[in-house]
């Protein structure tokens, strides 16, 4: 395993992208940074600018207005950057699927690398999701 890839998996800076969520998932994401879970142990850090991000955490079911902005923000990220859908809303639109102001699911707008289901998902589930994503990427590189 090259140093470059090892460094990438050991230092994941995440950008929190709230696409019209109900805030439950957002609170659970912030839980990850608190003393109980402390993801800084693994080098995971929350950053303020999407240019610094290695992973974008999308929460919420994404309404018409959020959709355009989400597209722009994801396009602004420096590659390699992964998109992680957090919560049932961003995974599948849940109960908002037939709502008048919702257009389409997140994976129609952008490539999604990991889905973490739950309403809201537990912090443990998010950590497991990120670990699964890292392992999948490493396995893909070995091939």
């Amino acid at each position, binding site marked *: 395993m090259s140093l*470059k890839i090892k*460094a*990438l998996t050991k*230092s994941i800076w995440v950008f929190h992208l709230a696409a019209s969520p109900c805030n439950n998932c957002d609170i659970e994401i912030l839980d990850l940074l608190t003393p109980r879970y402390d993801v800084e142990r693994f080098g995971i850090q929350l950053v*303020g600018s999407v*240019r*610094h991000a*290695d992973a974008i955490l999308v929460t919420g079911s994404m309404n018409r207005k959020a959709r355009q902005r989400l597209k722009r923000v994801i396009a602004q990220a*420096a590659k390699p950057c992964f998109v992680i859908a957090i919560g049932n809303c961003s995974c599948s639109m849940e109960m908002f699927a037939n709502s008048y102001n919702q257009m389409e699911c997140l994976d129609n707008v952008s490539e999604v690398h990991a889905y973490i289901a739950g309403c809201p998902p537990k912090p443990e589930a998010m950590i497991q999701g990120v670990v699964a994503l890292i392992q999948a990427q490493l396995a893909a590189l070995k091939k």
Partner: protein
Amino acid sequence: MSIVQGIGYLVIGFLAAAIIGMFAHWFDRKITARVQWRVGPPFFQPVYDLVKLLAKEVIVPEGASRFLFLSAPLFGLAAVSVVSALLIRTVIFPQQTFLGDLIVVIYLLTIPSQAVILGAFASANPLASLGGSREMKLILSYELPFVLAILVPVIKAGETIKLGVILQHQATEGAVIASISGVIAFVISLICMQAKLAKVPFDVPEAETEIMGGAYIEYSGAALGLFKLTQWMMMFVVPFFLMMLFIGAVNWRQSWLNIVWAALIYIGILLFITLVRNTNPRLRIDQIMKFFWAKITPIAIVAVILAFLGL
């Protein structure tokens, strides 16, 4: 000094500052984590961060000045490497310094901040230019008391602007900090250092929670990595410079134990920076200016007068 020697000193200065600066950054994050009752990042975290950033894509935003945007991080890094090389050379050969190297160091230490301003304005982002203008006001605030505080060791060492002479003076006559004016000036310079390193409570230029990283908002990949590295190297260079001026604790010629002693003092200063950073809220830029100009500068002037009186 030949060109080869000069390049050698630069490489040594860069490597020493980079390695110690990375340690300082890790120390800062680890202590912060412990203060917040967390575990904190692993020891090699700064290395992982740097390597990752160097390997990532660099994006030049639309409407940005390409040359300035990409060269600004290099200016800062170059300046801080030269300072580090100068300081390390002064410690090794105190007799061989040139006249006025103290002034050169003071000037070079402001270049990283100016590089941040240039890069911020070149990136054509409103939040970045806000960060850049705040950085500019921050320099205006702290630079005057910082220079006044540095005048104290200059006066104490017999009105010299040679770093090597100040060091040798302290080796024979005792440290500057062992006097009233020295203590006052050292405390002032520690506060100015906090602002120079843009740490809380003076972190207005990058204020993560209000202007999203401010000056660095548009930077990505290697350019951001170089800016981060410059910041980390400053965490070695500025405390080291103050230690040379006020404590003179790097007299390795007297005994090897002095190096251990210097390392302990350095870690103590780092601990001070980190604890101040963790126990204070961020000040507004107008509060910072009032604090430095109305409170710190008069005290610095008093320290200079005391030094003239020989106290």
